[in-house]
């Protein structure tokens, strides 16, 4: 096929990138080659705008077995016990087609985990939408939740938590991130096309025209009002095939029949062929006539970049090929021998006896361009910092507490998580609605804790501080349930990186993550960058979502957030600064303000709190522990009450800022009075501020200046979000 002039631009490649391709090939690229470059060099696949910043993140620790660059990070959570942990985004597809966009987002991250030889055992979904009062947003929420539920439930992986945030900035660009935890059952696997002469086999769904150019068309460009026309670029999910693919792939790895495995996602067949060869320093010859297709008449380029779902590529020695095909057949999956590993270091693609592409694997993969995009602080930041903070007293304190409690970001998310199977695998010791999910590992007596957090409003006010706060909150959530924070995966959702203001937010946020991860001893094991989250030029808040992984050495060390003993003492750990109201839920909900600076974080104090929580948990001192975040002390106390169906009586100041300040590095815990002395002793030793603030019990939430009936609070908490959604959808 001859290549028309300028066609590279239609494929999303710049003139400079086109020249660079010509230089590397020493000739004009064929159309198939150009299509392959366009997906592999897309922002989504190549990280070309983010790589220089991501390199600055800490990635090493003794417990980190594999860091960024693989299908998923691998962490040793106990001697000899490995888990995989990774987060991905499926933002644009979910806006275009919420059900399938979200469903295939689940499918994609599950295959990432699977490619490491790990069984996917838990999912978490950080979601962001525009205000639920708008019917369009309610439709998106309904579609996304249904998509996750339909896919995750069917493949039998529990969805154990997440977060759902509503802000105006996400109305035209919702965020659908998906994190997955995997348990490495047998040998660890990596995506390497090792061994010249080995065979390349494609397993799973047939390849069709769905999702042509998903990475370049959807994920690497801004949206405008024609977004609906991009619907054909969204893939359609088939969870049934995914479930079979999980079992077949794990069987292939367990029985030692394959030497390399990689999933197919963004970039289609181009991606695992180029990456597996590039990483192994080999080459690959692929005959795409052997790729099983969904429809006739597909062009070679379509076969190479189709993002049809539920496919895996494996590399096996020639003598094992038949057995690999047998395993696939047992699981009713199509599988075909599509190529060989060569020594050429080139990816050679042929169709109908003709070579349609022959390019260095490195050029597609490791040597994709990397840009030092210009960045500078946008001028509006100064205005936002000077804008009203929104910390004036409310007209009525009781009313303010209930209003914040019933606001969409704080109110209970039961309407969402009851649609997810959150129990399968019998490992969910703490499920949705808690600070972190606690997952017992299969046939092990220890557990991991996972949490996803992204306080984007703080990041909007100050991306560096906001990103540090995100890491701190995620780590605190994990510490609150009694675990040691070990490592993070991150999903960095930002606007258009070609805009210096957005790039500044990105640079600041990555710097913040790096600093916090270093201070808390939890390095980055991988993640995902999603740029171009803009529609018609309006960018989302900078939204780094942190997925924290922690380890619990003993199942009985875990601590829930529910008040569980009448007469227990109520203790606030950590210092409250009444000035930490910038970007708070109170400021937004009560005064409609987003201004000032985010709360100040001292990472030494944060780390001390984690040590204290861990020590108190292992000493079994605590009846409950709950992290303070959105809505501050007022909301944390109510949430522990509702969860435990027990009121409390506290002696608090009538300064509304004490109740609603969002100072970090705090937790509210309860313990039997007999444990109080030891807890205080630990707190003193670790230099954590300790304040006994009241007692657990009764059917009233008694703050001191205000008393609220437990049942009234429950009604507000449980109906806040569900009520808004059902009104909007009716």
């Amino acid at each position, binding site marked *: 096929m001859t290549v028309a002039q300028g066609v590279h631009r239609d494929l999303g490649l710049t003139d400079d990138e086109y020249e660079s391709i010509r230089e590397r090939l020493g000739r004009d690229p064929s159309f198939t080659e150009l299509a392959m470059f366009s997906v592999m060099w897309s922002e989504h696949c190549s990280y070309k705008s983010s790589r220089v910043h991501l390199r600055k993140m800490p990635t090493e620790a003794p417990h980190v077995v594999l860091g960024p660059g693989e299908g998923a990070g691998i962490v040793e959570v106990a001697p000899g016990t490995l888990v995989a942990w990774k987060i991905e985004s499926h933002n644009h597809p979910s806006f275009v087609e919420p059900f399938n966009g979200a469903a295939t987002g689940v499918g994609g991250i599950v295959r990432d985990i699977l490619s490491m030889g790990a069984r996917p055992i838990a999912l978490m979904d950080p979601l962001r939408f525009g205000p639920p009062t708008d019917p369009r947003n309610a439709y998106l929420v309904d579609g996304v939740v249904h998509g996750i539920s339909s896919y995750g439930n069917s493949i039998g992986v529990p969805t154990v938590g997440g977060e759902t945030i509503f802000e105006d900035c996400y109305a035209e660009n919702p965020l659908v991130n998906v994190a997955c935890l995997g348990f490495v059952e047998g040998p660890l696997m990596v995506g390497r096309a090792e061994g010249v002469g080995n065979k390349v086999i494609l397993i799973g769904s047939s390849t069709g025209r769905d999702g042509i150019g998903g990475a370049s068309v959807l994920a690497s460009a801004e949206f405008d009002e024609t977004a609906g026309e991009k619907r054909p670029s969204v893939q359609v999910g088939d*969870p049934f095939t995914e479930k079979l693919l999980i079992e077949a792939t794990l069987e292939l790895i367990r029985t030692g029949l394959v030497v390399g495995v990689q999933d197919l996602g963004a970039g289609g067949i181009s991606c695992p062929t180029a990456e597996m060869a590039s990483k192994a320093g080999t080459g690959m010859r692929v005959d795409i006539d052997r790729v099983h297709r969904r429809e006739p008449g597909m062009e070679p380029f379509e076969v190479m970049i189709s993002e049809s779902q539920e496919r895996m590529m494996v590399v096996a020695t020639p003598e094992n090929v038949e057995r690999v095909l047998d395993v696939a057949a047992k699981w009713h999956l199509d599988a075909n021998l599509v190529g060989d590993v060569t020594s050429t270091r080139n990816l050679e693609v042929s169709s109908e006896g003709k070579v349609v592409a022959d390019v260095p694997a490195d050029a597609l993969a490791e040597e994709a361009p990397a840009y030092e995009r210009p960045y500078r602080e946008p001028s509006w930041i100064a205005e936002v910092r000077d804008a009203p903070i929104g910390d004036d007293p409310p007209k009525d304190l009781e009313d303010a507490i209930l209003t914040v409690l019933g606001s969409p970001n704080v109110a209970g998310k039961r309407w969402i998580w*009851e649609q997810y199977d959150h*129990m399968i695998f019998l490992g969910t010791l703490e499920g949705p609605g808690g600070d972190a999910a606690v997952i017992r590992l299969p046939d092990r007596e220890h557990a991991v804790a996972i949490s996803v957090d992204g306080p984007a409003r703080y990041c909007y006010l100050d991306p560096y501080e906001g990103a540090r706060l995100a890491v701190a909150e995620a780590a605190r959530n994990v510490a609150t349930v009694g675990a040691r924070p070990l490592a993070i995966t991150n999903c960095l959702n930002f606007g258009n990186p070609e805009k210096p203001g957005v790039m500044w937010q990105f640079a600041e946020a990555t710097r913040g993550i790096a600093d916090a991860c270093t201070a808390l001893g939890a390095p980055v094991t991988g993640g995902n960058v999603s740029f171009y989250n803009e529609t018609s030029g309006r960018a989302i808040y900078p939204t780094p979502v942190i997925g924290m992984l922690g380890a619990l050495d003993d199942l009985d060390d875990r601590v829930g957030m529910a008040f569980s003993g009448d007469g227990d003492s109520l203790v606030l750990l950590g210092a409250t600064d009444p000035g930490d109201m910038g970007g708070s839920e109170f400021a937004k909900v009560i005064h409609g303000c987003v201004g000032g600076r985010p709360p100040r974080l001292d990472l030494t104090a944060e780390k001390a709190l984690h040590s204290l929580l861990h020590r108190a948990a292992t000493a079994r001192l605590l009846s409950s522990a709950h992290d303070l975040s959105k809505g501050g002390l007022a909301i944390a106390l109510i949430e522990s009450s509702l969860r435990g169906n027990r009121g409390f009586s506290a002696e608090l100041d009538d300064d509304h800022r004490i109740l609603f300040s969002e100072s970090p590095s705090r937790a509210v815990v309860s313990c039997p009075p007999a444990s109080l002395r030891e807890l205080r002793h630990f707190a003193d030793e670790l230099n954590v501020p300790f304040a006994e603030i009241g007692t657990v019990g009764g059917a009233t939430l008694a703050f001191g200046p205000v008393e609220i009936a437990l049942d009234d609070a429950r009604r507000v908490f449980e109906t806040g979000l569900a009520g808004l959604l059902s009104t909007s959808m009716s």
Partner: protein
Amino acid sequence: MSAQVSVIVFPGSNCEFDCERAFSLLGAEPHLVWHSETTLPHSDIVVLPGGFAHGDYLRTGALARFSPIMAAVSDHARRGGPTIGICNGFQILCEAGLLPGAMRKNTGLKFICKWVDLEVANAQTAFTSRTQPGQRLRVPINHFEGNWYCEDEELQRLRDGGQIVLRYADNPNGSRDDVACVSNAEGNVFGLMPHPERACEAMLGSEDGRLLLGSLLDAVEARRTVPA
């Protein structure tokens, strides 16, 4: 010898490992049987686990009843062998004609995963012998199509025959007569939407599932002591 439990694995089943674990905890010996087999290994109990057999893109259970293993499952059931279908397994047993009634989508048209209270309607069955009449059991549900239905006459017959085994205390899905579990007329085949295998450990929230699965193990024991 501990009870031999065959857990049938259809393509798309996903609760097979959980059933395996729960029966192991109770001292039985579970093993997985792939749907394309045509014979069962020696089986004291046959379990059809939850999941989405064959994807359930058609009507739930509609394809699974044609899986090769189902002939052997039917034989086992018709010979009086204890058989339970949990969730998708219940749907399959209805489609296979081994249990009365049919499934519709939940009245709320949403998937529901949550803990519910069940009430024992008949404590004289092989599945409930360890419980008391009216006893409340806490067991989770996890389904989109658990809205069980049958005609008036048949319902009366089931009631009269003691085939309504468990009812929901607070009906979550619209199921006729609040039915959560039914049996066949002979009392050896049971179908229920709730997942007893998820309620066998205190740290998961309830041990009430042990009463149900344990009753079945008692029944196996009783069958053994009766001379052939």
